């Protein structure tokens, strides 16, 4: 009788464990929302933060965002402007994501996208020529791992990778794609398109950014971005970028 009792309790606990795993899996899947966007038809925007506004407006949630740019656009938000430093009376607790949105800029639009739940994972694709500098810097930070040409640097529970198009491992899920004109300093549009196709990257929104206010982006790079847009528009329509 006692043995049966222990067996039944053990079985119940195992059942509870499996039910919790199921609950978490279902919750995770229902946390992803991808409304109809441009698909493989690119949208050209003037500034990086326009990409955030577009995704936010379209109700995107829990997405993988691929940012192809010389910049990471991942500067931390200034929490001291949201969380009071001195003993406040009374304490008004506000949502940090809403506060972060008020600080939206070109430098931090991907940080804001993470904080607002649009991005559940960020993959930064930087030019191959600049990757070693990135790796050299982030190696010094704790929590970062560099392996096989990929820097894994999670941000407060959000997976984040910095790598090159060449080192990116193919994956199945459709992504939100952001391409900045600055990336074309090193590559021709045709080369980037070939690389992306070889990695089977599929996007259900492609935002191309001219970075009009950025003095480090040249007119030549912007012209190449426009040609990249033409290539995408004229490309096959099998859903791949």
């Amino acid at each position, binding site marked *: 009788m*006692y*043995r049966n*009792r*222990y*067996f039944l*309790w*053990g079985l119940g*606990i*195992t059942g*509870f*464990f499996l039910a*919790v*795993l199921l*609950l*978490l*899996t279902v*919750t*995770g*899947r*229902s*946390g*992803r929302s991808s409304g109809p966007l441009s698909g493989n038809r690119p949208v050209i925007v003037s500034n990086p933060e326009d990409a955030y506004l577009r995704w936010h407006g379209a109700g995107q*949630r*829990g*997405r993988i965002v691929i940012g192809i740019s010389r910049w990471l656009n991942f500067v931390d938000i200034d*929490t*001291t402007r*949201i*969380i*009071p*430093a*001195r*003993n*406040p009376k*009374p*304490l*008004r*607790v*506000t*949502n*940090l*994501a809403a506060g972060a949105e008020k600080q939206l800029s070109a430098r931090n639009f991907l940080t804001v996208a*993470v*904080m*607002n*739940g649009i991005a*559940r*994972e960020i993959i930064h694709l930087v030019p191959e020529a600049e990757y070693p500098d990135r790796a050299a810097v982030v190696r010094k930070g*704790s*929590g970062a791992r560099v392996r096989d040409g990929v820097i*894994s640097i*999670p941000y*407060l*529970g*959000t*997976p984040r990778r910095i790598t090159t198009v060449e080192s990116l491992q193919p994956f199945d899920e459709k992504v939100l794609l952001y391409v900045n004109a600055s990336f074309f300093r090193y590559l021709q549009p045709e080369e980037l398109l070939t690389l992306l196709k070889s990695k089977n990257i599929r996007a259900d929104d492609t935002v191309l950014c001219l970075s009009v206010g950025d003095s480090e982006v040249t007119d030549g790079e912007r012209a190449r971005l426009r040609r990249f847009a033409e290539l995408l528009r004229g490309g096959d329509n099998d859903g791949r970028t």
Partner: protein
Amino acid sequence: MTVGRDIAYSRWLLVITLCGALLRFWGVASQPLLADEVGAAFTAVNYMENGQIGPIMPHHPHLRDIVLFFVGTFAGYSPLSLRAFSLFSGILSIPLMAGIMRRLGSNHGTALLAALLLAMEQVHIVFSRQAIQETWTTFLFLLGVYLVLNYQKCGRKPHYLFLAGICFGAGTASKFHALFPLFACMLLCLWFSLRERVWMRAVFELVTLTVLPFTVYVLTFLPWFARGYGLADWVPMQRAILEMMVHHQGNPMDQIIDRQAWQWFLRPMVYGNFVMDGTTPHVTISWSNPLVWLLVIPATAFQAWHCLRERANPSSVVDRSVPLLLFGASYLPLATSSRPIWLLTSLAVIPFAFMILSRTLVEISESFTYGRRVLAVYLSAVVVVLLLAWPMAVGKGTHYGYLAPFVERYRSVMEVVPTDTGNER
């Protein structure tokens, strides 16, 4: 006669608990919120509404975020409501200490002494008055230990161990050091079952003290999963959190405060918090009472020696060795850690240290004439020292001339360190 003793014991325990409650509640509603507490409230909302961890203490688990969010939502983000769970769990830990000692076969006096030592402990008082997870982690693992002992001593009824598994899971979901007593309790249960060759019971105990706490722990990540993650994402995220915890060096203010866990019981140590309350500096200092803490290592040696001497009587050895096992399992990982461990984390260890100490003090006092009087004098000294130092625990140290130089020593250093958000904690 026994009933009369039980009533007297209950009354004394009530008095000690009420004294402990008074020391913890006094002025708590008007004590300014510290940077950690303000940050914890924002972090709770960030976690529950956005599913994102941080910005403060991102390396700690998330039960604190869930509790503070619900408390804040239903009772408002006032200092008292935010601190309610810490106060509640801090006060309840006092009778729980006595309950554990009684389950370990101690007499009434030993149980009351263990409760008194915790009630009069300044580190425990300070963190019962803060809206962070320190005292409730202690409460949850103490409740888990109590339930495991109930399971062992009351016919091994499975529901006791089931409840213990939930408590340890909730404790681990508050702070990882709850894993240490969990591990000790698992060893204890398995040792009995394997020795008696009751295999099904051993499997049940293993499942209840591994799978169940893990289930509770992982369940607290539900808001994070709601961001769109799957189980495959959870494992690397845990690895990143553990890495953060292993490399954690504290915020700038922590750098000037004692942070060597191996010295806890060798010299008096200090942990401090500083915040500006309007234009007035508010310094809270928790200080290890040397009259108590410096006796822990000799008491541990005394109990270990008695274990060896009494090994012919297994029942006595088990009761005596359980606090030693819990103390060793909880303290050794912290004492040998290569990263800084601050005095606030001693709440993972001191309940077990006080169990050992109370037993030792009572046994020694009973071994010679006038022993009880000597013990009474000692306890009076402990209480007097606590009462003299207590204003520092509630941020009033600067109001008392004899404490002012001590408080000033920490304030002057802490004030120059930026304390804006506690972002790095």
